[in-house]
């Protein structure tokens, strides 16, 4: 099947901004929509929300454990609670509150990890979240997802608002072009989105790494005659194993891509499922290796570790022996 080249549309918004505007739309007609922040309304693009809905934002101050505990209490009393904090702090400092007060107690908090992955770039590893998928995947009763573009973000927020299960969403800061304009390509948690189709190779990517996967697919098509499938596997848990089986049957090799440690994230989740399913074709996990992370901007870190159109093209050709 021919690969579809998706045009890049620079100027589309950061997912974080879409998160904020979507939440404002919801809050306008639903007083139970509550945002809880830890001195993070600025970085969460929530200043306008706070001005428009001062009665629906709870400022906790810099205290992430308390942020999550309070959010659990609010959710238990019927509030549609979005707990918003940088992903690095939310999912490490407050991990026990996420595990016990949200997931185990089944309080349907919407945990929003902002500036996730290496979005904070040169601020360094204290501000990076390369562990969140791994840590949260091991916690029962928690949806874990990383929307890739503005469309997925808007849908994820709208669906999260009414979902009765605890959920973790992570967002980055850079402008994210739409992956596709096909109105039939809907978003549902737990269902990966097929963006392009090709039989030679599949990129299974998540969050802000779907875009470089698409760029690689375009380069492989135009420069090397390699046709690649690109999947936006926005939901890390529950993983869309139905789609994984289809991809395993239809393509000759798989590369997973994520803005996360290569340990415990999307790649290992796919590998674990596929191995037990009997998959025995070429497979590669691309992410941040287990080392002292290189310093630089998000783009520079991506480039350094091959999470780029060029890097993924090279990895694909290597995996295919071309």
């Amino acid at each position, binding site marked *: 099947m021919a690969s579809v080249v998706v045009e890049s549309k620079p100027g589309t918004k950061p997912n974080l901004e879409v998160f904020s505007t979507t939440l404002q739309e919801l809050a306008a007609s639903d007083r139970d929509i509550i945002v809880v922040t830890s001195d993070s309304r600025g970085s969460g693009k929530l200043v306008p929300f706070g001005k428009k809905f001062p009665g629906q934002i709870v400022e906790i101050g810099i205290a992430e454990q308390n942020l999550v*505990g309070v959010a659990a209490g609010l959710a*238990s009393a019927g509030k549609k609670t979005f707990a918003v904090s940088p992903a690095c702090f939310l999912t490490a400092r407050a991990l026990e509150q996420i595990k016990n007060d949200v997931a185990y107690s089944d309080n349907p908090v919407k945990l929003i990890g902002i500036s996730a992955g290496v979005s904070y770039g040169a601020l360094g590893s204290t501000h990076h979240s390369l562990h969140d998928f791994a840590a949260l995947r091991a916690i029962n009763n928690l949806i874990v997802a990383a929307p890739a573009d503005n469309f997925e973000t808007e849908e994820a927020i709208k669906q999260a608002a009414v979902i009765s299960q605890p959920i973790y969403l992570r967002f980055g800061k850079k402008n994210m072009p739409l992956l596709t304009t096909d109105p039939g390509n809907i978003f549902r948690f737990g269902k990966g989105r097929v963006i392009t189709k090709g039989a030679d190779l599949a990129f299974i990517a998540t969050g802000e790494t779907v875009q470089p996967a698409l760029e690689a697919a375009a380069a492989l098509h135009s420069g090397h005659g390699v046709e690649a499938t690109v999947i936006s596997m926005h939901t890390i848990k529950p993983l869309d194993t139905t789609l994984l089986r289809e991809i395993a049957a239809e393509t000759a090799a798989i590369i997973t891509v994520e803005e996360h440690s290569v340990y415990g994230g999307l790649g290992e989740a796919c590998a674990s499922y596929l191995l037990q399913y009997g998959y025995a074709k070429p497979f590669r996990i691309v992410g941040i290796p287990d080392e002292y992370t290189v310093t630089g901007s998000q783009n520079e870190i991506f480039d350094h570790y091959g999470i780029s159109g060029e890097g993924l093209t090279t990895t694909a050709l290597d995996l295919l022996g071309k």
Partner: protein
Amino acid sequence: MTDKELARKSIHYRQNILKYIVKAGAGHTGGSLSCIDILNILYNYSLNVSPENFRSPLRDRYIQSKGHCVEALFVVLADRGFFPESDLNTLCRYKSPYIGHPTRKVNGVEQNTGALGHGLPIAVGTALAAKMDQKAYRVFTLMGDGELPEGSNWEAALTAAHYKLDNLCAIIDKNSLQITGPTADVCNTDPIDEKFNSFGWAVTHVDGHDLTALQTTFDRLPFEKGKPSLVIAHTTKGKGISFMENVLSWHHGVPNQEQYAQALKELGEAVI
């Protein structure tokens, strides 16, 4: 309920705490005995909560932060009719919902607790929701003095005062002993009252085994309009059983048959 009936409840609850801990072969004996009089007054006098209104958004909430003393909570919930007391025969058994810490699998339990320092932040969020919705329910949480070093407590204490949560009441079961030794030796948190006062709370001391004083104390809530309330309940770990009182090994000690018989004898003699 008369004072005499409440006093008999406390004895009955102590008998049942021991009965089911012996049966399970596990439990937090000393702490359950130190907090049981507080739970007696909460569930039989102060709280607007019952099996009938447990799904009502207007019920009072009780969140047991010191989750390890679940046996005290279970015997009171059973007595109040949230579930048949015979269910407690399965305490800590395979596939039983009655495990060593509270979970919402058990009717009447508000939150899954067990890790310390979690009850107060959840209680703060629940009390905040009541304020937002202008609902009149109150939120109570019971903490151990040994869990006070958890930083999340102090984070939540700040938030409670910041949002003027006078519908929130935290109770500290100050039995002054924790698993390693005297709380004052492990990590001294005294003076607790001055600390919470400085955080913006209204604080009261009470004898945590004086049923009348506990009623009077809870009747005064909120202690000050616009401030969260803290009750420092001075208690004795192992209260009511002479050989358990203030003896560290009864933190999670399980009585043997001889000790159990002796304990029941003492409780029997205490019946009014």
